[in-house]
Structure formats: structure tokens, C-alpha cells
């Protein structure tokens, strides 16, 4: 099953768009007509064919363009990729996880041949062929984590486990929803989640940490998170907020459909075999309101979720300036009908 990769941009002229298939497989995150923080972690088991859950690592039509945007971000700001010295074993673990997964599930596009520690990697969409020695950093053109994450969609963090906590000691983060790896690197689980409102008091992070400390090898888990983004911009980093922040004032009743995007993060967590670290992947999917409006259940539900969203959450997610305009636009599509349970289109 070969994918056809689109040539599109996430900046300047913003030519990103979803095909009809991409709309249908979009990981809509709301299972009911309201939203509150909960520990929504579930086993990351293979899902139905064609969905974003079919394979552990989802490669889609945006792959090549996503990778080009990452390269642009890293060229401007190399500190979006950082790794503390003790994380090198976890970096190699990540190379193994991503290469084996991509090659196994997308054989038309990626091939991995292993002869002991002598590995041969072929990435056809990006035109890359690499022979290297697993465990020998001198045989790759980048450090291992940077090498493989320049070829895999999603942001990645490597969490070291010690002292009964998880420590964000490495990561490549170029498409984040307004948090800074450079600031947070070296922090523990509670510390890097510190700015999130309401959830600490609800015990969400205590429970999630306890769960993740016991994460088993071979039994990954996932959760969805969401925010909204104006224009299909992947790099909504705090580093560049003074450049993209004005986007939020450009929403009008006429352009909501094209400009306002629901941004869903599929977050996956894997225990790594050699380092005992955890991979925390954050894969962002974007969909504009016009596309949401083509799915009757989703347009009704998103309208109701935004209307009843606790103001602290809307403020934290940065929706305040355009939330009402978006609610008004979506209200035209909400006939008040009951929505079925679950996240799927119908």
C-alpha cells in the first residue's frame, strides 16, 4: 500500500490541506459533547485498517512535507533538539523502535536490513540510504535521536526513569503547542506539567505518573490531547510566539473555515529495552473548520465542546481571542441533534 506524499507548506503561504481520506481518519478527540482533563490513557494496540491507530507509528500523506518543516526549524534553531549526555543509550533504543516499526508497517517506503550491529536503512520517500553500525555514533551523520527523528513524523521526548519519577532528558520538538523543550529539558514529570491548569488539583498527573512508571516493554500506551491553531502552522513554539502570535487576531467570521484548525496530538509512550527510558511521542494532526463541518457529528460536538469549555482551559490553550467567533461559525451547523457516543465520524 503505497502512500502518495503531498508537497505542501506549514508556513508563509500555508498550502497544507487534508485529502478526503485524511479527514475521515482524523483522530477526533472528543468522545462526548464536553471536555475536561482526565487520565485518558489506553493501550496503544493496532486499530482498524486505515485509521491513525493501524500501526504503532503512523506515516501519512503529509510525511515528506512534515520532515521538510522540521529541517527548516532545526536549521533556524538547533536547540529544538537536545539530549543530556546520559541519554545516548535511549537514543539508540529510539532508532531501533522507529526504524523497525516504519520498515515493518510501510515496506513500500522503508527497508531495514540488520546483520548483527551492521544496519542498512533505506528511506525511499526522502531518498536516504544509510549503512551504519548500531551503537557507533561515528557512523551516522547526526546523533542517533536527531538522525531518526528527522525522518519520522511527530515530536519525540526521551524520559529517563529514576527516583520514582520521569525526567525529560532528551527530545526533538519542532511542532509543539507552545511549550519549550529548551526550558523544560531536565525537568521531572510534575515540573514540566506545572503550567497546566486544573489537572494537578484533580490528581491527573499523580495517577498518570504512577501508571507510566510501571509501563512495560512491548505494551505501549497512547492518549489524545488537543488545542487549536490559527493557520496550519506546525511550529507554534514559544520561541517564535512573537512571530506567530498575531495570527490569533486575524480570525473573522468570513475566514474561520480556512484559518481555524483543530490540532490533535496523538501521544504514544513506549518502554525502551536497553535504557529503561520511555519514548514520549507527540504526533500532531491538523484539520480546518471547513473539513470538520463536512462531518455532521464532529461539527455538532466541537461546537458544544467549545461552548462549554472551562475558561481556564481555553485561556491556557490560547483560544480566547477567536473562541467566540469560532463558536458562532460552528453554531450554524449544530441542529441540536443527539450525538452518538465515541469519537468516530458516526
Amino acid at each position, binding site marked *: 500500500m503505497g502512500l502518495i506524499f503531498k508537497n505542501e507548506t506549514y508556513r508563509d503561504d500555508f498550502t497544507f490541506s487534508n485529502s478526503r481520506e485524511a479527514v475521515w481518519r482524523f483522530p477526533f478527540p472528543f468522545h462526548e459533547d464536553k471536555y475536561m482533563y482526565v487520565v485518558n490513557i489506553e493501550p496503544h494496540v493496532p486499530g482498524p485498517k486505515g485509521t491513525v491507530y493501524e500501526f504503532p507509528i503512523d506515516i501519512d500523506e503529509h510525511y515528506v512535507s512534515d520532515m521538510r518543516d522540521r529541517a527548516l526549524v532545526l536549521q533556524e534553531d538547533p536547540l529544538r533538539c537536545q539530549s543530556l549526555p546520559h541519554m545516548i543509550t535511549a537514543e539508540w533504543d529510539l532508532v531501533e523502535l522507529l526504524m523497525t516499526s516504519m520498515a515493518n508497517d510501510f515496506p513500500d517506503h522503508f527497508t531495514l536490513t540488520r546483520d548483527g550491529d551492521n544496519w542498512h536503512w533505506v528511506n525511499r520517500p526522502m531518498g536516504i540510504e544509510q549503512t551504519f553500525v548500531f551503537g557507533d555514533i561515528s557512523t551516522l551523520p547526526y546523533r542517533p535521536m536527531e538522525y531518526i527523528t528527522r525522518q519520522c513524523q511527530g515530536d519525540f521526548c526521551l524520559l529517563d526513569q529514576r527516583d520514582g519519577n520521569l525526567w525529560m532528558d532528551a527530545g526533538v520538538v519542532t511542532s509543539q503547542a507552545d511549550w519549550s523543550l529548551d526550558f*523544560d529539558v531536565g*525537568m521531572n514529570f510534575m515540573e514540566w506539567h506545572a503550567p497546566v491548569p486544573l489537572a494537578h488539583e484533580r490528581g491527573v498527573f499523580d495517577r498518570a505518573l504512577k501508571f507510566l512508571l510501571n509501563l512495560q516493554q512491548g505494551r505501549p500506551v497512547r492518549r489524545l490531547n488537543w488545542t487549536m491553531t490559527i493557520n496550519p502552522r506546525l511550529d507554534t513554539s514559544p520561541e517564535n510566539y512573537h512571530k506567530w502570535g498575531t495570527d490569533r487576531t486575524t480570525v473573522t467570521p468570513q475566514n474561520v473555515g480556512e484559518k481555524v484548525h483543530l490540532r490533535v496530538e496523538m501521544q504514544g509512550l513506549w518502554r525502551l529495552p536497553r535504557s529503561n527510558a520511555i519514548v514520549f511521542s507527540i504526533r500532531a494532526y491538523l484539520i480546518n473548520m471547513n473539513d470538520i463541518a463536512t462531518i455532521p457529528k464532529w461539527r455538532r460536538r466541537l461546537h458544544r465542546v467549545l461552548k462549554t469549555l472551562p475558561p481556564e482551559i481555553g485561556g491556557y490553550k490560547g483560544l480566547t481571542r477567536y473562541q467566540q467567533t469560532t463558536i458562532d461559525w460552528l453554531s450554524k451547523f449544530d441542529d441540536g441533534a443527539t450525538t452518538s457516543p465515541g469519537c468516530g465520524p458516526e
Partner: protein
Amino acid sequence: MLAPGIKSRPVYPGLTADLAAKHNLISAEADGAAAVLDMAKTVTPDFFQRSTILYCSAGSAGKIYEQALRDLKPNALWVFPTLATALFRLRGTIATLTMGTRLYAAGTEPFIGSVIQEAIAAGIDFKSVITEHRGSAKRRVQCVHCKGFTEDVTTNPVVCAHCGLNLLVRDHYSRRLGAFQGVCIDAEVPGELPETEDLYK
């Protein structure tokens, strides 16, 4: 006392003497000396025979404590005029510390943050450092945009000393950087600023 902050912000429980330590390296800045003097009331004089005090007087206000610290008869008392000079000595001293040494830090939050950074760099567990906040609530702020550090921040918002952006001073704190995070406050509508408040005097 500082107002309680969010979970990334350290807590500074107060100086308590580690009587089991073979040696104590006590760093203090300005009014942090008063915390050392308070701790002295809880111990017998032999505690200070096992202690080295590194004191950053940080201007004339700190000078009044110098004699009082000397009167504790520490193994050594080193006095430095500025944060930079105090940290230079601290770095060199930490590098030669032996097992069984306990590190203490008392003073403003930027001072404690700098001591913790030196400790981490030398492989000391940050949780083992005994800390107490005294004096000004001023903050060190890192601009998330240009990454420059602005020292002695007492207001919110504050202008970045490096790139000149107007920064909202968040409570989010990085131990690795020893600083709070500053984020452009008028990024969405340039020039739309709230009143400047003296929050960290």
C-alpha cells in the same frame, strides 16, 4: 517568605544543620547570612569548626553580617563582593569536596538557583542541598525568544535586557537554567500591555 508557586518552582524549606556531615559548605548571600545566624542558635560551636562559609555580601547591605559570621568561628569564612566572584570560588571548591560534605544555600532565589546549578554541574543531587530564601523576591528571567537572562527582575511584565521584547514573567521555573520563563506578553497585539506591577520586590 515567597508566595507558593507552581510545581516546577523549588521550595526552600529553610536551613537546618546536618549534624552527621563531616564538613559543611555554607553559601549565603546578603540577608541569607541571617538564616545562617539563626541556624547557629540550634547547634553547638563545634558545628562551625566543621564548616566553611562562603558569603556574598552583594553590596553594602551585606557588610553588617560579616562580623557576626566571623564570630561563629567557622573553619573558614570567605567574603566576596558579587555573585560572579562568589560562584567562581564555589565552583573551584565544589570540585575538591570530599564525601560527607553537606552544601547549604541561603539568600535570594537567583542566588540559590546559581548554587544549585553549580552543584548539579558537579554531580551533586540537587535535593541534597539545604536551602532557605531570604531577602528580595527578585527573579532571574530567561527570555524564551532570544534566550537571554535578565537579572534582578522585580516587575511583571519586564523588558528583556537583551532583545527588548516585553516579557510576561511566568511562574514556570527551570532548575537547569536557574531562571523563570519570560514570554512576549504583547505578541498577539504588539503594544497592548497590562500595567507593570512590582510583584517581586
